């Protein structure tokens, strides 16, 4: 039997009829048409489906859609405000942290959660925060470069805020 639930994704609340057995990943990709979160393993092992649930990174393939009711869900589509890239996205672009791009949405969101909780992470904290996100292309080297650069940029923005032009 389907249940009608309310999901708040990227600030928009939608009524969605779902089978209680369906995952948040399936519902967001198939019913809401947001395909930025990727299906990589269906086992919570690769992090390609990472979404933020009330600011916390989760593997959406391990969360039932009904469990996410009432939470603020953020997907990769929700972080470039008004078409302006988030500083983390910008850093990923500039530092060559993107190759095939399939793991990128998950890496960007995991980084966002990390830098919001720990604005200046040490190397170990950075590796730990991203240890659940597999990337087969980059060897993580340029991902680390991008995260360090994003942390620097965010720090600058905090200390000397720039008015968006």
């Amino acid at each position, binding site marked *: 039997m389907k249940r009608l639930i309310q999901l708040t994704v990227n600030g928009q609340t939608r009524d969605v009829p779902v089978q209680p057995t369906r995952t948040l990943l399936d519902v967001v990709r198939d019913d809401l048409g947001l395909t930025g979160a990727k299906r990589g*393993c269906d086992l919570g092992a690769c992090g390609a489906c990472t979404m933020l649930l009330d600011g916390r990174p989760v593997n959406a393939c391990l969360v039932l859609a009904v469990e996410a009711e009432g939470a603020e869900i953020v997907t990769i589509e929700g972080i470039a405000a008004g078409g302006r890239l988030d500083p983390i996205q910008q850093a990923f672009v500039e530092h060559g942290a993107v190759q095939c791009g399939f793991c*990128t949405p998950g890496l960007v969101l995991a980084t966002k959660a990390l830098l919001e909780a720990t604005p200046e992470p040490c190397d170990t904290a950075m590796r730990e925060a991203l*240890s659940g996100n597999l990337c087969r292309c980059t060897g993580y*080297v340029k991902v680390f470069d991008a995260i360090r650069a994003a942390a620097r940029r965010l720090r600058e923005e905090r200390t000397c805020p720039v008015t968006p032009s």
Partner: protein
Amino acid sequence: MSRYAVVGKPLPRVDAREKVTGAARYTADVRLPGMLRGKILRSPVPHARIVRIDTSRAERLRGVHAIVTGRDTAGLRVAFVDTPRYPADEPPFALDRVRYIGDEVAAVAAVDDATAEEALALIHVEYEPLPAVFTAADALRPGAPLIHEFEYPGKTIWEDWGARGRPEGEPVPRADNVAARTFVEFGDLTAGFERAHHVRDDRFDVAPVAHAPIEPHAAVAWFDADGRLNMHVASMGIFYKRFVLSKALGLPISQVRIHKSYVGGAFGGKIDVFPYELGAALLAKKAGRPVLMELSRAESLTTTRMDFHAAVRVKTGVDRDGAITAQDIQVTVDTGAYRGTGPVVVFLCYSYNIPVYRVPALRYEGLAVYTNNPVKGPKRGHGAPFIRFAVDSHMDMLAEDLGIDMVELMRRNARDRGEVMPTSGDTLRSCGLKDCIEAAARDGGWAVKRRTADWSATGRYQRGVGISACSMFSGSPYYPFASAAVMKLHDDGGATLFAGTVEMGQGSETTLSQIAAEELGVPLDDIRIVSGDTELTPIEFGSFLSGGAFVTGKAVRLAAADAKRQLLAMAARLLEAGVDDLEARDKRVHVKGLPHRSLGYAEIIAESVKRAGGDPIIGKGHVKSVPDAGLHPSLSTARGRWTEAYGFAAQLAEVEVDTWTGKVRVLRLVTYHDCGFPLNPQIVEGQIEGCVSMALGQTLQERVDLREGQVFNPDFLAYRLPITHDTPDMVSGMIHSDEPHGPFGAKEVGEGAVSGVMAAVANAVHDAAGVRITSLPITPAKVLSALRRRTTEDMGGLERAPHAPQRSDAPRHSRGAPRPRDSFTGSEASS
């Protein structure tokens, strides 16, 4: 200062913005009205005769729209290798026999995944088990069960291209399980070994590993109103896929269109045309609706090819100075239930090895053997990782025997520019191999970090360094043998590049756009690229055999040059000057020495439309992958031209061995890659870093756990890829050797640097802890066991371990008496 304005610059990728925002569309993201979901029924047994398939209950299930079985593909065989010698051997869906766990038996299209799964469970298949074999050695034994009882000669897909097929006739009975053999012999082998000062003979073993791109395999298929097949596929070359799909489905090539999808990593694993892709097309035809076939992670890991299980034996004779006098190499790979790329890999183990060291006399034999294991295919390096692991581990052992420093030994044997490869006649027009070795040794601190102390030191953590080198093609003669490109100018001075490349992470959209921008004389932002669509772009070689940038890059450069030539001709008319008196800069054409007489590109193009009968200026370029390759280069004899340019790399590993646990930690990995010229240094670095990471996975931890044909680790919890914590410090340097046949001097970069890591690490482990591991992966258990055996020997050698090497009188050398050496799988040394 650089000669160039756009190439050679670390510019951000043109596809990055789409990828960081989630807008980039991959095959499984495609949503079409009425789209069904496809699923595959697979064999649960390694070898069996199919007695009966009953789909009637599944057909009656509500929501099921189509079912495909072997009856729909009867008589059809599809394979990556489909030549007169090696005719295709893989039926897309089993008709009467399954040969491995995962072999495709049926496909279902239904309204959703759950219904499709339910339908699979309702298909009844009656199997009659047959005896199975699971190792190459067992499969080669006389009396072993035949995995393929017949060969089916006849027309091959290559006939369209002039390759003569054997006449179609009765199936030919097969006598053994040998799927392919490559044999190469040159020079006087006997004399070479006779005049050798020292000879070693060693064996190595490499476990199968998985490609494991993060994107699982997927395909979307639909037929349009005119009956044309349209597909999104996870590919590495859309024109190859289109060709094989059209042949297999009996459609004219122009009735099949591949649409653009980004590809979420491939690493060799997405070249083949797979049964699931043919299944998606057949289901879409039957159902009259689009079908999305998305494979699970387990299916992706076990049924879409994996790397080979390889056994390598290397015997080398060297003179007093360490120069190779003769070499005898045997490679045996388990190619699985179908040929896959077995015939290619046993050829490539010869071809990727021969450009590294000068060998005056060689005998090489490569055997690919059928088993009832999953099918093997090309994985990044395609043979180079295991042949280079074996040969450079062996060279390190030779260096020690001779008392010659390994870097010095490499230096003495490494090839130089201008050398011509035996059998192929390929010439090394550029070769930075020695520069790579020198640079890696220098930056890796070889001279100071190479261990000189005794291994009996009692510290728990022991450090050491090791080095290895490797080489790789830059494209090869393979379908479609060539790349073309079209460049269309716009009346604002910008341009659109039409190139058939598939962007799978390698950065081809960016580097090709850079080439176009450089040649045309515009900033990168002015180039828009249309790629990945067989209808919108001319043929393209594909991004495999490391030919993407090398082959397609040249076609793009020619297309841009053609457009620019037309632009200058029009400018000459408008400026009333000779073409030779013009120069183009910053999107303007000037008369030399008269800066006031100039026109912007936009004005010239607009005038061309008005004056020259509406010509908007369209440039065209094309190039063959290997221009003077014949149609019959031979995989079995390695004769025939194979590539235009070889990339080279040298890699140095610094490791720390925990002698209490056997765990090996790589501290630093230094790579120098001779890529000719880095079209985009940031992308080149990214390719090297990715190669190193993947190679370290294979060296230290990855292994497909196959037992009796069953994969026991078909998921990312049990099959552990390198994670953030596993990333060592990396130095990824580039050697500019300026390949004369490459676009702006560029050649291969995406594959080479996977293949030097294995021996570099194995040699470093030996340097650190005095133990020689001759099988991959180098697990803590192997290291610990070798350390224990060494300790036993150190204590007097009274309890010689059963697998310890048989040592004869190896020559004494400057570092003192021969040290106890150990080997995991056993090796022999003889003088």
